[in-house]
Protein backbone atom coordinates (compact mmCIF):
# COMPACT_ATOMS: atom_id res chain seq x y z
CA UNK A 1 0.00 0.00 0.00
CA UNK A 2 2.92 2.39 0.66
CA UNK A 3 3.75 2.02 -3.01
CA UNK A 4 0.23 3.13 -3.81
CA UNK A 5 0.65 6.28 -1.74
CA UNK A 6 3.82 7.06 -3.66
CA UNK A 7 1.83 6.59 -6.87
CA UNK A 8 -1.00 8.82 -5.64
CA UNK A 9 1.41 11.57 -4.64
CA UNK A 10 3.25 11.31 -7.94
CA UNK A 11 -0.02 11.47 -9.88
CA UNK A 12 -1.16 14.61 -8.03
CA UNK A 13 2.24 16.20 -8.59
CA UNK A 14 2.05 15.40 -12.30
CA UNK A 15 -1.50 16.72 -12.61
CA UNK A 16 -0.73 19.97 -10.75
CA UNK A 17 2.46 20.73 -12.68
CA UNK A 18 0.96 19.74 -16.03
CA UNK A 19 -2.22 21.74 -15.60
CA UNK A 20 -0.31 24.85 -14.49
CA UNK A 21 1.99 24.61 -17.50
CA UNK A 22 -1.07 24.02 -19.66
CA UNK A 23 -2.74 27.20 -18.43
CA UNK A 24 0.40 29.18 -19.21
CA UNK A 25 0.50 27.76 -22.74
CA UNK A 26 -3.21 27.50 -23.44
CA UNK A 27 -4.29 30.99 -22.39
CA UNK A 28 -2.26 32.98 -24.94
CA UNK A 29 -2.83 30.24 -27.51
CA UNK A 30 -6.61 30.35 -27.09
CA UNK A 31 -6.58 34.16 -27.11
CA UNK A 32 -4.60 34.29 -30.30
CA UNK A 33 -6.75 31.59 -31.86
CA UNK A 34 -9.95 33.44 -30.95
CA UNK A 35 -8.74 36.58 -32.75
CA UNK A 36 -6.97 34.89 -35.63
CA UNK A 37 -8.78 34.62 -38.96
CA UNK A 38 -7.03 32.63 -41.63
CA UNK A 39 -7.88 29.79 -44.02
CA UNK A 40 -5.40 27.62 -42.11
CA UNK A 41 -7.21 28.11 -38.80
CA UNK A 42 -9.22 24.86 -38.97
CA UNK A 43 -5.98 22.95 -39.44
CA UNK A 44 -4.44 24.49 -36.33
CA UNK A 45 -7.63 23.77 -34.40
CA UNK A 46 -7.60 20.19 -35.63
CA UNK A 47 -3.98 19.70 -34.55
CA UNK A 48 -4.83 20.93 -31.05
CA UNK A 49 -7.89 18.67 -30.93
CA UNK A 50 -6.02 15.57 -32.13
CA UNK A 51 -5.36 14.13 -28.64
CA UNK A 52 -9.14 13.95 -28.20
CA UNK A 53 -9.58 11.44 -30.97
CA UNK A 54 -6.25 9.66 -31.31
CA UNK A 55 -5.56 6.63 -29.15
CA UNK A 56 -3.08 7.69 -26.45
CA UNK A 57 -0.80 4.94 -27.68
CA UNK A 58 -0.27 6.85 -30.94
CA UNK A 59 0.99 9.83 -28.97
CA UNK A 60 2.96 7.53 -26.67
CA UNK A 61 4.58 5.80 -29.61
CA UNK A 62 5.71 9.03 -31.26
CA UNK A 63 6.92 10.41 -27.95
CA UNK A 64 8.93 7.24 -27.37
CA UNK A 65 10.62 7.75 -30.74
CA UNK A 66 11.10 11.47 -30.10
CA UNK A 67 12.59 10.87 -26.64
CA UNK A 68 15.23 8.46 -27.87
CA UNK A 69 18.78 9.82 -27.74
CA UNK A 70 18.99 9.41 -31.52
CA UNK A 71 16.32 12.08 -32.10
CA UNK A 72 16.91 15.83 -31.90
CA UNK A 73 14.54 16.22 -28.94
CA UNK A 74 16.07 13.40 -26.92
CA UNK A 75 19.66 14.41 -27.66
CA UNK A 76 18.93 18.10 -27.13
CA UNK A 77 17.41 17.38 -23.74
CA UNK A 78 20.30 15.15 -22.82
CA UNK A 79 22.90 17.79 -23.62
CA UNK A 80 20.88 20.40 -21.70
CA UNK A 81 20.12 18.42 -18.56
CA UNK A 82 22.38 15.38 -18.74
CA UNK A 83 19.34 13.19 -18.21
CA UNK A 84 17.09 11.12 -20.40
CA UNK A 85 13.55 12.10 -21.35
CA UNK A 86 12.08 8.64 -21.63
CA UNK A 87 11.32 7.05 -18.26
CA UNK A 88 11.58 10.40 -16.48
CA UNK A 89 9.10 12.63 -14.71
CA UNK A 90 9.94 15.48 -17.08
CA UNK A 91 9.04 13.21 -19.98
CA UNK A 92 5.67 12.48 -18.40
CA UNK A 93 5.02 16.20 -17.96
CA UNK A 94 5.70 16.79 -21.66
CA UNK A 95 3.43 13.90 -22.57
CA UNK A 96 0.65 15.13 -20.28
CA UNK A 97 0.81 18.69 -21.57
CA UNK A 98 0.35 17.52 -25.15
CA UNK A 99 -2.24 14.94 -24.18
CA UNK A 100 -4.42 17.39 -22.20
CA UNK A 101 -3.89 20.45 -24.42
CA UNK A 102 -7.35 20.42 -26.05
CA UNK A 103 -9.01 20.16 -22.65
CA UNK A 104 -7.39 23.44 -21.64
CA UNK A 105 -7.55 25.28 -24.97
CA UNK A 106 -11.14 24.56 -25.98
CA UNK A 107 -12.97 26.02 -22.95
CA UNK A 108 -10.70 29.09 -22.98
CA UNK A 109 -11.23 29.52 -26.69
CA UNK A 110 -15.00 29.38 -26.23
CA UNK A 111 -14.71 32.03 -23.51
CA UNK A 112 -12.55 34.36 -25.56
CA UNK A 113 -14.75 34.02 -28.64
CA UNK A 114 -17.78 35.00 -26.57
CA UNK A 115 -16.04 38.06 -25.24
CA UNK A 116 -17.60 41.04 -26.93
CA UNK A 117 -15.00 43.54 -28.12
CA UNK A 118 -17.44 46.35 -27.21
CA UNK A 119 -16.84 45.81 -23.49
CA UNK A 120 -13.14 46.28 -23.99
CA UNK A 121 -13.66 49.37 -26.13
CA UNK A 122 -15.94 50.85 -23.48
CA UNK A 123 -13.44 50.03 -20.77
CA UNK A 124 -10.75 51.67 -22.86
CA UNK A 125 -12.88 54.78 -23.29
CA UNK A 126 -13.45 54.91 -19.55
CA UNK A 127 -9.71 55.12 -19.19
CA UNK A 128 -8.92 51.65 -17.87
CA UNK A 129 -5.35 50.61 -18.49
CA UNK A 130 -4.58 47.41 -20.38
CA UNK A 131 -3.88 45.45 -17.17
CA UNK A 132 -6.98 46.85 -15.51
CA UNK A 133 -8.99 45.75 -18.55
CA UNK A 134 -7.63 42.24 -18.20
CA UNK A 135 -8.20 42.14 -14.45
CA UNK A 136 -11.58 43.83 -14.24
CA UNK A 137 -13.25 42.99 -17.54
CA UNK A 138 -11.72 39.97 -19.25
CA UNK A 139 -10.97 37.81 -16.23
CA UNK A 140 -14.41 38.08 -14.57
CA UNK A 141 -16.11 37.35 -17.88
CA UNK A 142 -14.10 34.25 -18.75
CA UNK A 143 -13.69 33.00 -15.19
CA UNK A 144 -16.00 30.00 -15.66
CA UNK A 145 -14.00 29.02 -18.72
CA UNK A 146 -10.72 29.31 -16.84
CA UNK A 147 -12.06 27.09 -14.06
CA UNK A 148 -13.34 24.57 -16.58
CA UNK A 149 -10.05 24.54 -18.47
CA UNK A 150 -8.00 24.11 -15.32
CA UNK A 151 -10.31 21.46 -13.90
CA UNK A 152 -10.52 19.43 -17.07
CA UNK A 153 -6.78 19.59 -17.70
CA UNK A 154 -6.16 18.45 -14.14
CA UNK A 155 -8.73 15.66 -14.21
CA UNK A 156 -7.67 14.45 -17.61
CA UNK A 157 -4.03 14.23 -16.53
CA UNK A 158 -5.06 12.28 -13.42
CA UNK A 159 -6.63 9.65 -15.63
CA UNK A 160 -3.78 9.45 -18.11
CA UNK A 161 -2.76 5.90 -18.88
CA UNK A 162 -1.85 4.99 -22.43
CA UNK A 163 0.84 7.62 -22.88
CA UNK A 164 2.49 6.86 -19.54
CA UNK A 165 2.36 3.16 -20.28
CA UNK A 166 4.37 3.72 -23.44
CA UNK A 167 6.99 6.20 -22.17
CA UNK A 168 7.05 5.71 -18.41
CA UNK A 169 8.93 2.50 -17.75
CA UNK A 170 6.99 1.95 -14.51
CA UNK A 171 9.59 3.36 -12.10
CA UNK A 172 8.22 3.80 -8.56
CA UNK A 173 8.36 7.42 -7.41
CA UNK A 174 9.39 8.62 -10.87
CA UNK A 175 6.90 7.42 -13.48
CA UNK A 176 4.67 4.87 -11.77
CA UNK A 177 1.44 6.88 -11.63
CA UNK A 178 -1.87 5.79 -10.18
CA UNK A 179 -3.35 4.33 -13.37
CA UNK A 180 -0.19 2.26 -13.97
CA UNK A 181 -0.18 1.05 -10.38
CA UNK A 182 -3.82 0.07 -10.77
CA UNK A 183 -3.07 -1.78 -13.99
CA UNK A 184 -0.24 -3.66 -12.26
CA UNK A 185 -2.56 -4.77 -9.50
CA UNK A 186 -5.11 -6.05 -12.00
CA UNK A 187 -2.45 -7.84 -14.04
CA UNK A 188 -0.91 -9.47 -10.99
CA UNK A 189 -4.33 -10.60 -9.75
CA UNK A 190 -4.34 -8.23 -6.76
CA UNK A 191 -7.99 -7.45 -7.34
CA UNK A 192 -8.52 -6.20 -3.77
CA UNK A 193 -5.88 -3.52 -4.01
CA UNK A 194 -6.90 -2.71 -7.56
CA UNK A 195 -10.42 -2.17 -6.34
CA UNK A 196 -9.28 0.20 -3.59
CA UNK A 197 -7.36 2.36 -6.03
CA UNK A 198 -10.07 2.25 -8.68
CA UNK A 199 -12.89 3.23 -6.35
CA UNK A 200 -10.70 5.95 -4.82
CA UNK A 201 -9.93 7.45 -8.23
CA UNK A 202 -13.56 7.18 -9.26
CA UNK A 203 -14.86 8.99 -6.19
CA UNK A 204 -12.15 11.63 -6.37
CA UNK A 205 -12.88 12.32 -10.04
CA UNK A 206 -16.60 12.45 -9.36
CA UNK A 207 -16.13 14.99 -6.57
CA UNK A 208 -13.76 17.05 -8.69
CA UNK A 209 -16.11 17.16 -11.65
CA UNK A 210 -19.13 17.91 -9.44
CA UNK A 211 -17.25 20.80 -7.85
CA UNK A 212 -16.35 22.07 -11.27
CA UNK A 213 -19.93 22.07 -12.49
CA UNK A 214 -21.12 23.58 -9.23
CA UNK A 215 -18.60 26.41 -9.43
CA UNK A 216 -19.72 27.07 -12.95
CA UNK A 217 -23.44 27.00 -12.36
CA UNK A 218 -23.60 30.72 -12.91
CA UNK A 219 -21.86 30.49 -16.21
CA UNK A 220 -24.30 27.79 -17.23
CA UNK A 221 -23.58 26.02 -20.49
CA UNK A 222 -20.16 27.57 -20.52
CA UNK A 223 -18.59 24.31 -21.72
CA UNK A 224 -18.62 24.52 -25.47
CA UNK A 225 -21.58 26.88 -25.56
CA UNK A 226 -20.26 28.48 -28.71
CA UNK A 227 -18.19 25.83 -30.32
CA UNK A 228 -20.44 22.91 -29.58
Amino acid at each position, binding site marked *: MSGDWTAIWLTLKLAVISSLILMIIATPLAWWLAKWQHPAKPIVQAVIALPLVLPPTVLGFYL*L*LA*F*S*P*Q*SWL*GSGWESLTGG*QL*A*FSFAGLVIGSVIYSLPFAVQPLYAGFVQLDIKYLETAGMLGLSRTAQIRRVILPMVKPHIITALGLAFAHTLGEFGVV*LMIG*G*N*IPGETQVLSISLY*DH*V*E*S*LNYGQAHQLAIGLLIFSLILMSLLYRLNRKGRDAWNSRSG
Partner: protein
Amino acid sequence: MNYRLCSLSVLLSFLLIPSAGLADTLKVAVAANFAKPLEQFATAYNEKTGNRVIVSKASSGTLYAQINHGADIDVFLSADSSRPQQLLEDGRVNASDVVTYAIGRLGYIQRSNASPDVETLKTFALAPTTRLAIANPRLAPYGEAARQALTSLVLWQHVSGALVYGNNVLQVYQFYQSGNVDHALLAWSLIKGEPGAVQLSDELHQPIVQQLAITATGADKAAANAFVDYLLSDEVQTQLPQWGYQRTGTRE
Protein backbone atom coordinates in the same frame (compact mmCIF):
# COMPACT_ATOMS: atom_id res chain seq x y z
CA MET B 1 -36.97 5.13 -44.74
CA ASN B 2 -38.45 1.81 -43.80
CA TYR B 3 -36.40 0.11 -46.43
CA ARG B 4 -33.26 1.74 -45.12
CA LEU B 5 -33.98 0.73 -41.56
CA CYS B 6 -34.64 -2.77 -42.78
CA SER B 7 -31.37 -3.12 -44.63
CA LEU B 8 -29.52 -1.58 -41.71
CA SER B 9 -30.94 -4.13 -39.29
CA VAL B 10 -30.16 -6.94 -41.71
CA LEU B 11 -26.59 -5.71 -41.89
CA LEU B 12 -26.37 -5.38 -38.13
CA SER B 13 -27.74 -8.83 -37.51
CA PHE B 14 -25.11 -10.25 -39.84
CA LEU B 15 -22.46 -8.54 -37.80
CA LEU B 16 -23.90 -9.89 -34.59
CA ILE B 17 -24.28 -13.51 -35.65
CA PRO B 18 -21.51 -15.52 -34.06
CA SER B 19 -19.61 -17.66 -36.48
CA ALA B 20 -21.87 -20.55 -35.69
CA GLY B 21 -21.61 -23.77 -37.62
CA LEU B 22 -17.83 -23.50 -37.89
CA ALA B 23 -17.39 -26.03 -35.11
CA ASP B 24 -13.71 -26.52 -35.79
CA THR B 25 -12.62 -22.94 -35.43
CA LEU B 26 -10.47 -22.76 -32.33
CA LYS B 27 -9.88 -19.63 -30.35
CA VAL B 28 -6.43 -19.62 -28.83
CA ALA B 29 -5.14 -16.91 -26.52
CA VAL B 30 -1.37 -16.65 -26.23
CA ALA B 31 1.11 -14.74 -24.11
CA ALA B 32 2.92 -12.13 -26.17
CA ASN B 33 6.33 -13.87 -26.17
CA PHE B 34 5.00 -17.04 -27.86
CA ALA B 35 2.69 -15.35 -30.37
CA LYS B 36 5.02 -15.57 -33.37
CA PRO B 37 5.78 -19.28 -33.17
CA LEU B 38 2.18 -20.08 -32.35
CA GLU B 39 0.92 -18.26 -35.42
CA GLN B 40 3.22 -20.33 -37.56
CA PHE B 41 2.20 -23.59 -35.86
CA ALA B 42 -1.45 -22.60 -36.27
CA THR B 43 -0.96 -22.08 -40.00
CA ALA B 44 0.73 -25.46 -40.35
CA TYR B 45 -2.06 -27.07 -38.33
CA ASN B 46 -4.65 -25.48 -40.59
CA GLU B 47 -2.91 -26.81 -43.69
CA LYS B 48 -2.69 -30.23 -42.14
CA THR B 49 -6.18 -30.65 -40.72
CA GLY B 50 -8.29 -27.90 -42.25
CA ASN B 51 -9.17 -26.63 -38.79
CA ARG B 52 -8.89 -22.91 -38.33
CA VAL B 53 -7.13 -21.40 -35.32
CA ILE B 54 -7.77 -17.80 -34.37
CA VAL B 55 -4.91 -16.42 -32.30
CA SER B 56 -5.30 -13.52 -29.90
CA LYS B 57 -2.27 -12.24 -28.03
CA ALA B 58 -1.92 -10.18 -24.89
CA SER B 59 -0.06 -10.42 -21.61
CA SER B 60 -0.76 -13.52 -19.55
CA GLY B 61 -2.37 -11.45 -16.81
CA THR B 62 -4.82 -9.80 -19.18
CA LEU B 63 -5.73 -13.09 -20.81
CA TYR B 64 -6.24 -14.74 -17.44
CA ALA B 65 -8.58 -11.94 -16.35
CA GLN B 66 -10.54 -12.24 -19.59
CA ILE B 67 -10.91 -16.00 -19.29
CA ASN B 68 -11.87 -15.68 -15.66
CA HIS B 69 -14.65 -13.34 -16.68
CA GLY B 70 -16.07 -15.66 -19.27
CA ALA B 71 -14.12 -14.88 -22.45
CA ASP B 72 -14.79 -17.49 -25.11
CA ILE B 73 -11.29 -18.96 -25.36
CA ASP B 74 -10.56 -22.63 -26.08
CA VAL B 75 -6.86 -22.82 -25.28
CA PHE B 76 -4.83 -20.41 -23.15
CA LEU B 77 -1.06 -20.43 -23.59
CA SER B 78 0.44 -18.59 -20.66
CA ALA B 79 4.00 -17.33 -20.29
CA ASP B 80 4.15 -18.94 -16.86
CA SER B 81 2.72 -21.80 -14.87
CA SER B 82 1.06 -19.77 -12.13
CA ARG B 83 -1.91 -18.55 -14.16
CA PRO B 84 -2.92 -21.92 -15.60
CA GLN B 85 -2.47 -23.32 -12.09
CA GLN B 86 -4.70 -20.52 -10.81
CA LEU B 87 -7.41 -21.57 -13.29
CA LEU B 88 -7.03 -25.08 -11.91
CA GLU B 89 -7.42 -23.82 -8.34
CA ASP B 90 -10.44 -21.77 -9.36
CA GLY B 91 -12.01 -25.00 -10.59
CA ARG B 92 -12.20 -23.54 -14.08
CA VAL B 93 -10.19 -26.42 -15.60
CA ASN B 94 -9.23 -29.97 -14.64
CA ALA B 95 -5.73 -31.16 -13.78
CA SER B 96 -5.50 -32.95 -17.13
CA ASP B 97 -6.23 -29.66 -18.93
CA VAL B 98 -3.01 -28.01 -17.73
CA VAL B 99 0.25 -28.96 -19.38
CA THR B 100 3.71 -27.53 -20.05
CA TYR B 101 4.26 -26.66 -23.72
CA ALA B 102 7.65 -24.94 -23.69
CA ILE B 103 10.49 -23.82 -21.47
CA GLY B 104 11.53 -20.21 -21.98
CA ARG B 105 15.08 -18.90 -21.98
CA LEU B 106 16.46 -15.57 -20.94
CA GLY B 107 18.54 -13.39 -23.23
CA TYR B 108 20.62 -10.23 -22.93
CA ILE B 109 20.92 -7.65 -25.67
CA GLN B 110 23.08 -4.52 -25.77
CA ARG B 111 24.67 -2.15 -28.23
CA SER B 112 28.30 -1.77 -27.14
CA ASN B 113 29.77 -5.21 -27.76
CA ALA B 114 29.41 -7.20 -30.98
CA SER B 115 29.87 -10.58 -29.30
CA PRO B 116 28.76 -10.17 -25.72
CA ASP B 117 28.75 -12.72 -22.93
CA VAL B 118 27.77 -12.70 -19.30
CA GLU B 119 30.89 -10.65 -18.48
CA THR B 120 29.57 -7.85 -20.68
CA LEU B 121 26.46 -7.77 -18.54
CA LYS B 122 28.54 -7.78 -15.34
CA THR B 123 30.78 -4.96 -16.49
CA PHE B 124 27.81 -2.83 -17.39
CA ALA B 125 25.64 -3.64 -14.38
CA LEU B 126 28.34 -3.09 -11.75
CA ALA B 127 28.40 0.60 -12.63
CA PRO B 128 25.43 1.31 -14.87
CA THR B 129 25.63 4.59 -16.74
CA THR B 130 22.43 4.09 -18.68
CA ARG B 131 19.23 2.23 -17.99
CA LEU B 132 18.63 -1.49 -18.16
CA ALA B 133 15.18 -2.61 -19.26
CA ILE B 134 13.56 -5.75 -17.89
CA ALA B 135 9.96 -6.90 -17.84
CA ASN B 136 8.03 -6.17 -14.67
CA PRO B 137 8.88 -9.07 -12.31
CA ARG B 138 5.42 -8.84 -10.76
CA LEU B 139 3.66 -9.35 -14.07
CA ALA B 140 5.95 -11.16 -16.42
CA PRO B 141 7.77 -14.44 -15.84
CA TYR B 142 10.67 -13.20 -17.95
CA GLY B 143 10.89 -10.21 -15.63
CA GLU B 144 11.06 -12.49 -12.63
CA ALA B 145 13.72 -14.59 -14.38
CA ALA B 146 15.70 -11.42 -15.11
CA ARG B 147 15.48 -10.43 -11.46
CA GLN B 148 16.67 -13.88 -10.40
CA ALA B 149 19.54 -13.83 -12.89
CA LEU B 150 20.70 -10.40 -11.70
CA THR B 151 20.45 -11.64 -8.12
CA SER B 152 22.48 -14.81 -8.83
CA LEU B 153 25.15 -12.68 -10.47
CA VAL B 154 25.14 -10.41 -7.38
CA LEU B 155 24.29 -7.45 -9.59
CA TRP B 156 20.77 -6.69 -8.38
CA GLN B 157 21.92 -4.22 -5.72
CA HIS B 158 24.09 -2.35 -8.17
CA VAL B 159 21.62 -2.17 -11.01
CA SER B 160 18.23 -1.83 -9.32
CA GLY B 161 18.38 1.98 -9.42
CA ALA B 162 18.94 1.90 -13.16
CA LEU B 163 16.07 -0.40 -14.08
CA VAL B 164 13.07 0.46 -16.20
CA TYR B 165 10.19 -1.93 -16.38
CA GLY B 166 8.31 -3.00 -19.45
CA ASN B 167 4.84 -4.33 -19.11
CA ASN B 168 5.85 -7.48 -20.91
CA VAL B 169 8.85 -8.66 -22.91
CA LEU B 170 7.54 -7.10 -26.10
CA GLN B 171 7.57 -3.67 -24.50
CA VAL B 172 11.09 -4.26 -23.19
CA TYR B 173 12.11 -5.07 -26.75
CA GLN B 174 10.38 -1.91 -27.96
CA PHE B 175 12.32 0.21 -25.41
CA TYR B 176 15.50 -1.28 -26.84
CA GLN B 177 14.50 -1.02 -30.50
CA SER B 178 13.43 2.61 -30.19
CA GLY B 179 16.85 3.49 -28.77
CA ASN B 180 15.63 4.53 -25.34
CA VAL B 181 17.70 1.87 -23.58
CA ASP B 182 20.99 0.30 -24.64
CA HIS B 183 20.72 -2.80 -22.45
CA ALA B 184 17.84 -5.19 -21.92
CA LEU B 185 17.10 -8.60 -20.44
CA LEU B 186 14.23 -10.36 -22.16
CA ALA B 187 12.99 -13.52 -23.80
CA TRP B 188 15.76 -15.12 -25.83
CA SER B 189 13.11 -16.04 -28.41
CA LEU B 190 12.69 -12.37 -29.31
CA ILE B 191 16.36 -11.51 -29.82
CA LYS B 192 17.87 -14.77 -31.06
CA GLY B 193 20.08 -14.00 -34.04
CA GLU B 194 20.19 -10.25 -33.46
CA PRO B 195 23.53 -8.42 -33.23
CA GLY B 196 24.66 -7.88 -29.65
CA ALA B 197 22.40 -10.58 -28.22
CA VAL B 198 23.42 -13.52 -26.05
CA GLN B 199 21.52 -16.27 -24.31
CA LEU B 200 22.08 -16.40 -20.56
CA SER B 201 22.66 -19.69 -18.81
CA ASP B 202 19.52 -21.46 -17.62
CA GLU B 203 21.27 -21.94 -14.29
CA LEU B 204 20.97 -18.27 -13.42
CA HIS B 205 17.22 -18.45 -12.88
CA GLN B 206 14.35 -20.80 -12.12
CA PRO B 207 13.07 -22.53 -15.26
CA ILE B 208 10.56 -20.41 -17.15
CA VAL B 209 7.88 -23.05 -17.39
CA GLN B 210 5.26 -22.01 -19.93
CA GLN B 211 2.03 -23.87 -19.37
CA LEU B 212 -1.23 -23.93 -21.24
CA ALA B 213 -4.74 -24.60 -20.05
CA ILE B 214 -7.54 -26.08 -22.13
CA THR B 215 -10.47 -23.88 -21.26
CA ALA B 216 -12.85 -25.20 -23.92
CA THR B 217 -16.01 -26.93 -22.77
CA GLY B 218 -18.54 -29.15 -24.48
CA ALA B 219 -18.23 -29.73 -28.19
CA ASP B 220 -15.10 -27.61 -28.61
CA LYS B 221 -13.14 -29.68 -26.13
CA ALA B 222 -12.15 -32.43 -28.54
CA ALA B 223 -10.90 -29.94 -31.11
CA ALA B 224 -8.94 -28.11 -28.41
CA ASN B 225 -7.40 -31.38 -27.23
CA ALA B 226 -6.37 -32.25 -30.77
CA PHE B 227 -4.63 -28.91 -31.23
CA VAL B 228 -2.81 -29.24 -27.91
CA ASP B 229 -1.69 -32.75 -28.89
CA TYR B 230 -0.28 -31.19 -32.05
CA LEU B 231 1.59 -28.53 -30.05
CA LEU B 232 3.12 -31.26 -27.88
CA SER B 233 3.95 -33.51 -30.82
CA ASP B 234 7.55 -34.08 -31.87
CA GLU B 235 6.85 -32.20 -35.07
CA VAL B 236 6.29 -28.97 -33.14
CA GLN B 237 8.50 -29.61 -30.13
CA THR B 238 11.62 -30.26 -32.22
CA GLN B 239 11.17 -26.80 -33.77
CA LEU B 240 11.14 -25.04 -30.41
CA PRO B 241 14.94 -24.65 -30.02
CA GLN B 242 15.17 -22.70 -33.26
CA TRP B 243 12.51 -20.35 -31.87
CA GLY B 244 14.59 -19.85 -28.73
CA TYR B 245 12.75 -22.23 -26.40
CA GLN B 246 13.56 -25.56 -24.83
CA ARG B 247 11.31 -28.40 -25.74
CA THR B 248 9.29 -30.21 -23.13
CA GLY B 249 8.31 -33.81 -22.50
CA THR B 250 5.12 -35.41 -23.71
CA ARG B 251 1.69 -34.98 -22.25
CA GLU B 252 0.95 -37.20 -19.26
